[in-house]
């Protein structure tokens, strides 16, 4: 008997998929080339891949549908596309469409590159060569072009092929572009003012490109975007798991990323009013998995102990080898990796924060699904990575969401709770910074115990008391926003389960730092500077992160947000060869500490789950 096939259509998309009966709608979307974000990798553990069934038989909800979507959305014909089996011709609406979802991506346009001497290695020189005239002269086009420049003629074959005509057709001479004394390209006319570079920060969630003028050091354009690989899994591990399934998947992950970066380059060039053929140097930072996928290296061994990368050292090659559409001879530089879970992004962070310099104890933490912590001082440089999970990004939190319009980003408390949403839009959920603020507020008013139990320990103001209730499942919850208030369509509550998820995340991050302190024999008070990096870190309330114990209880003067430190490091290596070389040396110096098997980790982690009793209240001037 032949397999029955059905057609799956997507509202607003021209492509359809014909799939076998029983295939998932998520699979059908992938076949059709329709982007559905599957943050958990299509395992029914999140709600990112939900679709609305608009035509065809609506199957009964699965358990995962009910758990993730709730009765209301299930009633509105929403289903998880990873769980929804095709048994009929069906039309679904992807929700929310990826391109309509505006996320906050942290980019710094004002990059503090002060003190940095531009020494990017790229040089352009304009020449007026003479054509070979006498057959008796033993010479060639190339030799005439390079005469007197002292340059090595290491040109791409393509350039040599174009040389004879270029030389004879250009009356305005030629421009030779070199890197480190080697010729990268030849162009007609005088293009000596057109020298650009690209710094790329490739994250699991976001990809940010910085187009920079290699002569002035000025940023011409910054292009942030969401990593298009998200359709194959939101977090690193589901990305690796997808790659493990087949080498075809590795190619899919790579080609999506490279294609997207080429689009980003196009966007940056049009913003900056330049041509992509004038980009000669590219520096890339990213976690080890993104580094591997960008280069087309199978990341499968990063997913299994001992989590060894294919290579750690800095790597350089021609940009065209990885498929980037820039100047023909452009050079590509990958900053080194430290370990399987401590990548070139961490190196970029160290580069821009100068953590290795001086004897002071300084810590930098990049908060993400994997949080990397680095501690420098007393001649040591230690790094570790902890699996914080996605809770602080709003995932696995009942009303959690990414930092987008309508997300509660600030919470304060007096006799009642007050919230502030991104863009002042009607409240639809809570993002990481709002979550951390809310928990700090609940600790302050005594609705949360230090062990993390949601219970009123004493009498509460009436407005707060009303918000603390027992949810449908018999588990305590606290209503942050009542349905109708601030334009909310439903009650937005933090549940006891949400609190536990945040406790696990913050314990993972803070125990990573604690283990580094343990290695160096350093107490909280010994920390001279604590830097929070990453897109998420910068939106956090300073007091709130101390209140929940995400960072040690240090005076605000010792805590600093350092924005996109990894991207800044890439820009520094782009503009300065000595910085890039510093990165290569740093790569060999960093000591990697493995948390999971560290003898103290279990105890430190369990201790870090509780919240601090209280924190010191500092005045503004501290």
């Amino acid at each position, binding site marked *: 008997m032949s397999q029955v096939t059905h057609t799956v259509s997507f509202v607003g998309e021209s492509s359809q998929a014909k799939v076998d009966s029983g295939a998932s709608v998520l699979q059908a979307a992938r076949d059709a080339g329709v982007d559905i974000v599957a943050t958990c990798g299509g395992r029914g553990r999140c709600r990112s891949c939900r679709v609305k069934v608009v035509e065809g038989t609506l199957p009964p909800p699965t358990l995962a549908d009910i758990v993730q979507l709730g009765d209301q959305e299930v009633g509105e014909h929403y289903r998880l596309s990873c769980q929804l089996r095709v048994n009929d011709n069906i039309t679904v609406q992807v929700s929310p469409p990826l391109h309509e979802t505006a996320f906050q991506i942290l980019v710094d346009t004002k990059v503090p590159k002060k003190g940095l001497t531009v020494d990017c290695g790229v040089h352009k020189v304009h020449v007026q060569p003479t054509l070979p005239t006498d057959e008796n002269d033993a010479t060639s086009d190339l030799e005439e072009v390079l005469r007197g420049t002292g340059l090595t003629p290491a040109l791409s074959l393509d350039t040599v092929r174009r040389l004879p005509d270029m030389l004879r057709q250009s009356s305005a001479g030629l421009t030779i572009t070199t890197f480190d004394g080697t010729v990268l390209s030849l162009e007609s006319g005088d293009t000596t003012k057109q020298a650009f570079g690209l710094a790329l920060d490739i994250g699991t969630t976001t990809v940010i490109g910085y187009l920079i003028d290699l002569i002035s050091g000025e940023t011409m354009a910054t292009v942030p975007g969401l990593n298009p690989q998200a359709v194959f899994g939101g977090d690193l591990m589901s990305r690796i798991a997808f790659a493990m399934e087949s080498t075809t998947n590795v190619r899919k992950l790579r080609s999506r990323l490279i294609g997207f970066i080429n689009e980003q380059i196009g966007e940056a060039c049009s913003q900056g009013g330049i041509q992509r053929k004038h980009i000669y140097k590219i520096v890339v930072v990213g976690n080890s998995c993104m580094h591997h996928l960008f280069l087309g290296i199978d990341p499968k061994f990063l997913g299994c102990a001992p989590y060894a990368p294919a290579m750690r050292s800095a790597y350089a090659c021609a940009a065209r080898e990885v498929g980037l559409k820039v100047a023909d001879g452009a050079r590509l530089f990958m900053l080194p990796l430290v370990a399987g879970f401590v990548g070139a992004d961490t190196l970029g962070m160290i580069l821009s924060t100068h953590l290795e310099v001086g004897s002071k104890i300084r810590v930098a933490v990049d908060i993400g699904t994997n949080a990397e912590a680095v501690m420098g001082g007393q001649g040591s440089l230690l790094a570790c990575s902890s699996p914080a999970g996605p809770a602080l990004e709003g995932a696995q939190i009942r009303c959690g969401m990414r930092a987008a319009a309508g997300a509660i980003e600030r919470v304060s408390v007096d006799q009642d709770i007050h919230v502030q949403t991104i863009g002042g839009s009607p409240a639809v959920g809570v993002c990481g910074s709002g979550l951390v603020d809310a928990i700090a507020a609940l600790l302050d008013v005594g609705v949360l115990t230090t062990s993390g*139990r949601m219970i009123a320990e004493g009498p509460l103001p009436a407005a707060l008391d009303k918000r603390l209730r027992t949810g449908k499942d018999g588990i305590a919850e606290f209503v942050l926003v009542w349905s109708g208030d601030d334009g909310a369509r439903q009650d937005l509550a933090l549940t006891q389960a949400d609190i536990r998820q945040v406790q696990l995340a913050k314990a993972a991050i803070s125990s990573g730092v604690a283990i580094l302190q343990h290695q160096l024999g350093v107490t909280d008070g010994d920390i001279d500077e604590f830097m929070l990096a990453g897109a998420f870190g910068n939106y956090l309330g300073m007091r709130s992160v101390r209140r929940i114990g995400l960072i040690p209880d240090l005076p605000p003067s010792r805590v600093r947000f350092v924005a996109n430190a990894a991207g800044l490091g890439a820009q520094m290596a782009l503009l300065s060869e000595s910085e890039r070389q510093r990165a290569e040396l740093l790569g060999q110096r960093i000591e990697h500490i493995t948390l999971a098997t560290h003898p103290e980790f279990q105890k430190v*982690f369990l201790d870090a789950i509780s919240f601090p009793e209280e924190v010191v209240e500092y005045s503004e001037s501290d």
Partner: protein
Amino acid sequence: MSNMESLVEAVKAGEEEDAVTYVKAVIEEGHEVVNIVASLTDGMREVGDAFGKMELFLPEMVMAADAMTAAMDELKPLIEASAAGMVAKGTVVIGTVEGDVHVIGKEIVVRMLRANGFEVHDLGYNVNTLDFIKKAIEVKADIIGASALMSTTMPNQRELVKLLTEMGCRDDYHVIIGGAPVTQPWVEEIGADSWGENAAKSIEILEGIAEKIGKNNV
């Protein structure tokens, strides 16, 4: 409060020293070992229930398990001397699968299992699939527990079930799997027996299995 009540409270609160003090007191008072163990087990069940409702969390549960284990250690000589003796509720071989080095969740399950009277053989982390089975055969295990904390190492849980089947001994063991990325559909897909969604849930499931295999006696 009687000493027995104080003992149960001490275990629930994870007060290890108090638990030892009060267990000595109740032994002194001449309580039957069977009754002491039953009271303690009830106390631990309450801890598990509170964990299920998320009123308690990992640190409290681990402390309670440690206090329980300390109390049980005091009772051990009496249990061994008593006519009935005490058979372990079941023998468990447990570990984190190959390729994975994450142990915290699994170790909490181990502590809870020991506190609840199971015989536990903890193989640690990065455990080869065949080693799980070799150990299970060697110790005549009833239960095999396999933890995977990464979506990239979950396939080794499938390998375990597959290898058990190929070796013709799949029915000899109850296979429970756990770890953050594990789901009920995954349990069904690979043909494991149960999902240890969290430490308390794992204990609850395995207590049920212990009853079934008839070793749940003191």
